[in-house]
């Protein structure tokens, strides 16, 4: 085939455009949602058009067709208006760079006009570039993209209510002043046309390249013209097409790799996700395609749990792990393989400084206008690139580097990582009855006692249980204000004695508390609930029978409610708490005329958790990285990824980082479709199993909000719990306290996990038994050496 039309054709473009843009005749502008990935790169042309004029900017993906981009037979993308290659005589080379810093292992060279840095490994002589070099410029991109690729920093600007103007070092006129500082340079940049500027400090700290933009260096001097996003080194460690073997690490789920191979122009977008999830305070219900106009069949993508990404050139044995150290709570990780606009593989962090949002003017949302955030987010922006070389330049090396970083900086302390099987219980939920609701008890305290003694006699020596729906009014009677158990499960007294008695046997019960959500039906007042940035109440609508609407509790109120609850609870001598809701959700909000950022929300959670840490044994549900130090266990560790098409391999990156530091528990085994494979994944990643169990048959839940729990009966899972416990406890004991030092997927289909105590675990996911290192690993099985 001579040419292949780019995969993304009309419909894709249309749907992308539909979800991203809302055209409002009233305001006469086009609004782009937060996800205007790289729209900036397209935007310089419009920068020249008159301000306020309607200008529709295609998104990166949507731009492909609009640009008349074509893919040639080598899989290269050729843009319309491509600049062509740079003549060799005009190349900017390493000779034009100035050496500005040197450490034991690296030399740092700096080229001011492009804010470009090249790192030279002193022992291998290999280079790591932060911007596209003229030599490797394939000339297939237009001037805008060309400028994007060769700039060390790219901003997007908001003018009026449009946020699609690209500001870079080359195509936008600027003034740059560089001063030498310890181990690096400090570059003060000012863009005349936009009248804003900032300072970028680039330092080499041993093996680490640190790029920092101090908050107080940001100046915005023109009313109505603001910095929207800042991308630092968007071409850090880039590669061209399949020139290099290697991969990019993206923090999707547990961890995922995008290979640096030829993608043949198949993908219109790459990975682009907010760190710590999207901002519920900004998102508006978008146009979605529902089954029968009602049911959302698409599962949400995973949130980014840790603010990291990485790149490894496996042939050159060169790579880096990037940690977004400052500004991470409002930044996104971008990782685009070749074919996404340009022919280079690249990953970087993009910071959101100020955003636009849609302000509805009436209840029916028929009239809207676009507004700009009144203030920008005040925080430093900082990315630390931990440079990796030799054997360490792979994802195992990245995991080790990140683990050491966390431990060295006291971001997490080593916890008791002893093995437990996690068996969670559902106490009660509610169903409609007469004019109100009535309790549907599923697992009473007596039932738990019975289950515990059964498991104990079967040889399960320790257990971690999260008790959900224990509180008065059932699982969805939230927020929980005091320690009162539902009478249908046995009441507070028997719950207290259950928790105390079972703890003696090594069975620890944690009471589940979703501190974020407010049930709209059981709490009629909306005084303490979160309003979005556009001052509309943040609503979480669920398609369920009994309770269909939830609000978010204001972080301040969340804190006081939780403190009150914990007090009423530790009074009774009980101090196990499983905290959820606030642990994996941060958002911007408005309250009484003031605006609060994701930092305010995160700090409130951090405060609460830190305050409780002394007298409460706390486990957190899928905690984001900034909460790791406060949890005794990591609940609901994802084992897979979000199934992006451009992801080539899933790796247990987070598990490798946290194994031997925090005990990790999986998602519920009950609802997994392929249980054996899931079991093997737990063996591979050192994650402990979780079950969600009820004493009664789950069909009793059919008229409750928990009707999606379609299989939870204890008698069904009893044998699985016991056999999982036996198997995985043995695996865990073999590696007790050890860290994963290497993880490798071998050519024969066996995954080899090496621990720093010398233990090696082989996991065979294939259907044939495989001999490896003198061992035979059966099909769909594992071996410990």
């Amino acid at each position, binding site marked *: *085939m001579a040419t292949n039309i780019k*995969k993304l*054709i009309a*419909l*894709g473009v249309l*749907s992308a455009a539909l979800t991203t843009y809302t055209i409002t005749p009233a305001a006469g502008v086009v609004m782009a949602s937060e996800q205007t990935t790289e729209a900036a790169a397209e935007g310089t042309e419009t920068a020249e058009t008159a301000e306020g004029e309607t200008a529709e900017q295609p998104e990166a*993906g949507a731009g492909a067709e609009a640009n008349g981009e074509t893919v040639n037979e080598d899989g290269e993308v050729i843009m319309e208006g491509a600049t062509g290659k740079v003549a060799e005589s005009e190349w900017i080379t390493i000779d034009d760079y100035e050496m500005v810093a040197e450490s034991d292992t690296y030399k740092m060279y700096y080229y001011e006009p492009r804010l470009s840095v090249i790192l030279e490994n002193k022992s291998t002589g290999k280079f790591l570039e932060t911007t596209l070099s003229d030599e490797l410029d394939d000339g297939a991109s237009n001037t805008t993209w060309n400028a994007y690729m060769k700039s060390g920093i790219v901003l997007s600007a908001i003018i009026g209510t449009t946020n699609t103007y690209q500001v870079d070092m080359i195509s936008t006129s600027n003034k740059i002043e560089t001063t030498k500082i310890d181990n690096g340079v400090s570059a003060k940049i000012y863009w005349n046309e936009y009248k804003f500027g900032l300072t970028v400090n680039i330092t080499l700290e041993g093996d680490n390249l640190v790029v920092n933009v101090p908050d107080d260096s940001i100046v915005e001097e023109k009313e109505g013209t603001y910095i929207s996003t800042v991308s630092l080194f968007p071409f850090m460690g880039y590669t061209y097409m399949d020139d290099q073997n290697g991969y990019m690490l993206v923090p999707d*789920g547990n961890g995922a790799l995008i290979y640096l191979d030829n993608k043949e122009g198949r993908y*219109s*977008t790459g990975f682009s996700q907010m760190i710590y999830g999207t901002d519920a305070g900004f998102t508006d219900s978008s146009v979605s*395609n529902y*089954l*029968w106009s*009602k*049911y*959302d*069949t*698409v599962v949400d*993508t995973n949130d980014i749990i840790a603010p990291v990404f990485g790149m490894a050139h496996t042939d050159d044995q060169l790579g880096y792990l990037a940690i977004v150290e400052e500004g991470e709570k409002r930044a996104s990780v971008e990782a685009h393989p070749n074919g996404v606009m340009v022919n280079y593989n690249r990953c970087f962090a993009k910071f959101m400084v100020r955003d636009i949002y849609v302000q509805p*003017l*009436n*209840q*029916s949302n028929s009239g809207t206008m676009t507004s700009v955030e009144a203030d920008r987010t005040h925080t430093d922006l900082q990315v630390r690139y931990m440079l990796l070389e030799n054997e360490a330049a792979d994802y195992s090396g990245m995991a080790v580097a990140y683990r050491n970083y966390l431990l060295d900086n006291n971001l997490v302390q080593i916890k008791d990582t002893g093995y437990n099987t996690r068996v969670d219980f559902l106490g009660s939920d509610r169903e409609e*009855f007469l*004019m109100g609701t009535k309790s549907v008890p599923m697992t009473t305290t007596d039932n738990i006692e019975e289950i515990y003694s059964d498991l104990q006699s079967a040889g399960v020596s320790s257990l971690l249980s999260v008790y959900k729906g224990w509180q008065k009014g059932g699982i969805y009677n939230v927020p929980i204000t005091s320690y009162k158990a539902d009478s249908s499960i046995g009441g507070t007294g028997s719950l207290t004695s259950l928790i105390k008695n079972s703890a003696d046997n090594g069975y620890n019960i944690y009471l589940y508390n979703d501190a974020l959500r407010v049930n709209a039906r059981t709490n009629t007042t909306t005084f303490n609930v979160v309003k979005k940035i556009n001052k509309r109440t943040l609503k979480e609508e669920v398609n369920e029978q009994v309770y269909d609407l939830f609000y978010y509790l204001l972080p301040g109120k969340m804190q006081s409610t939780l403190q009150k609850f914990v007090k009423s609870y530790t009074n009774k001598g009980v101090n196990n708490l499983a905290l959820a809701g606030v642990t994996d959700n941060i958002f911007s909000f408005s309250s009484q*005329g003031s605006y609060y950022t994701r930092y305010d929300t995160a700090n409130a959670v951090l405060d609460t958790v830190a305050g409780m840490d002394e007298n409460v044994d706390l486990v957190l549900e899928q905690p984001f990285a900034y909460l790791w130090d406060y949890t005794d266990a990591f609940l609901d560790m994802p*084992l*897979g*990824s*979000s*199934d*992006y*098409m*451009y992801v080539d391999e*899933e790796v247990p990156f987070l598990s490798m980082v946290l194994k031997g530091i925090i005990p990790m528990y999986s998602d519920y085994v009950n609802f997994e*479709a*392929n*249980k*054996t494979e899931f079991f093997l*994944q737990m063996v591979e990643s050192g994650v402990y199993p979780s079950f969600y169990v009820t004493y009664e048959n789950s*069909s009793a839940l*059919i008229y409750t909000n928990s*009707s*999606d729990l*379609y299989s939870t009966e204890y008698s069904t*899972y009893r*044998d*699985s719990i016991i*056999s999982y416990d036996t*198997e995985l406890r*043995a695996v865990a004991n073999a590696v007790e306290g050890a860290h994963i030092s290497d993880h490798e997927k071998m050519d024969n289909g066996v995954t080899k996990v090496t621990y720093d105590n010398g233990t090696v675990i082989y996991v065979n*996911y*294939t*259907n044939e038994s495989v001999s490896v290192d003198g061992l035979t690993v*059966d099909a*769909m*099985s594992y*071996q*410990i*050496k």
Partner: protein
Amino acid sequence: MKKRTLFSKRNIVSALLAIGTFLVTVTSSVTSVKAETPYKTYTVDGYGSVQETQTAYLAYETITKFGDNFLSAPSDLCVTEDGEIYVADTGNARIVVGDINSNEIKTIGEGTLVTPKGVFVTDDKHVYVADRDAMAVFEFDADGTLLNTYTKPDSPLYGDELSFLPIKIVVNDAGIMFVICESNTNGIVEISPQEGGTFLGYFGTNFASTSLQTIIYRAILTDEQRAKMVSNIPSTPDNHAIDDKGLIYTVTRGDKESTIKRLNIAGNDLIDGTERYPEIPAAIAAGNHDNLYVADQQGFIYEYNNDGELLYVFGGLDDGTQRVGLSTLVSAIDVDTEDRIYLLDADKNQIQVYEPTEFTELLHNALYLYSKGRYTESKEPLTKVLEMNSMFDYANQAMGRAYFQEENYAMALKYAKLAKDYEGYSDAFWEVRNTWLKKNIVTAIFLIVFLWAAWKIIKYYDKKKNILAGPKNWWNKKKENTVISNLLYTKYFAKHPFDGSYGIAREGRASWIAPTIILVIFTAEFVINKYLCGFLQKTIREGRFEIFSDIGQIIIVVFALTACHYLVCTINDGESTVKKIYTYFIYSLRPYIIITPIIFILSHVLTENEQFLITLAQFVMIGWIIVLAIIAIKEVNDYTPGETFKVICLTVFTILIMALLIFIVYVLWAQVFQFISAIVGEVVYRLGY
């Protein structure tokens, strides 16, 4: 070094469940390790409401090319029994043949084909291609040699002015081709291979549905106006498939419940309507277990059983996040012998393969055994299915039927109720009741005799020694109370409506308290009967309670009836007051008070065959109430029959007008409210709060 296997012999029994999982995963290859899916799977329960369920199919493999052959706007695919995939690669004007590992096997028809839109492969590997712009069906042999070309049939029955634009094709064992042609609304073109193509006629013609509205329009519009109406021609099937028995399956967009058809050779639809149908059906495929698959253009995949009942729906539209298993423009679907689903995406130019999970395999197995009448055997996989999802209603239903066959009626009853399987419930209930009767009939007769004797004895002693004098006196005293006397009067009213009405009109029987008590009893009975009646009579979903709105509705009806009727009566020389009207309407409900408890009891003891008793009782009751009300209207107001009829009609009309008025006021008020809130919203925004 200690050798370990996943499950040692010691705990092999306890690991049974997990081992079950092995059986399935063994079939999957290493390249496809994807435990999670980006889409949810739903099923429909016995009430027709939608429930999430276990993942039924996992995204398995994405085929973007065979060898070096990329696809371009492909429109059809066909998977053979030995796993060869034939794709109508429309944009490249060829048929590409490959396998699931993206290996190229061959290409067919390059140079011959123009726009191949449909492809079908027979058991002997003959390839039939429907080529729209070549206006022909081509038949190739297994080597790709062109054997036959079938062009427009010259039979006059085909229609001279109709062009031949084949887009989809299936072929049965006899070599007869069923061709769907673009812009041919007569149906599927049936061509025999004899004599270079003999037109046999049209098959599976859809019928244009005519709504009442259309009929009225047609009657009143002029010819010109009628010409402008959207022409009411039947829709052509969008796609079709054939199973090993030669049954043809079709999907037709916009045909609502009859979107999916299973046609026998005579062209009769064997599916009795599907409640949950795809909105934009793109393609259909017959499965290996008497099941069928339908793909929606937007990426939803439906699996039905052979009665057209939905088993699963999953998948979805990719909104640009590019996740495996979501689609953008589905053009074809097929299934291989291992139940893997192949979904062709004309926009992404790829084939997405899905593989069934353990759950689905068990269900398929159970459905198969059940359909073959091997009930006891089918219980084992069904139990496993229910262990994994106890709310899966088709499994509950099949389980109930299986228990019934085993004569375990108590369990059959339980599962039938869970599955909302009325027929099965009724059958099981008959048996249970029968057993009960057999066991208890003697006791029951004994009890009746005993009670009868006791009553006789009491009566006898009462006559002799007057032992009941105390209660009798007390009761007679109570009767003198106006309210109680009025309440008892309702019995007289029900039996003697003419005299009874006279009592209301002239003898001061009209009151507020007594009818209100009756109304309360009525409401209580209504609510109890609605929510606690026998399973077979129940009109509302188990566990649903709408008592507040029930009571509200009763009050509104009584109020509207009384008020409107009063208004009408006053201007029609009626003699009644509001009190009288209220009294006689409520008193007319007396039959309900008596009969409903009987119906309530019957509903708990009757099977479906005996339901006519309840229907009859309801019929009598309603008739009685209406007669009472009409007589009361006539007598109390002293109307002639003609006047009574007029007043009743006027009352109904007044109620309608009142409802309309309230609706208009509501709409206007909503507008005002929205206007005010818009202004407030704007002000609040401008003020910055």
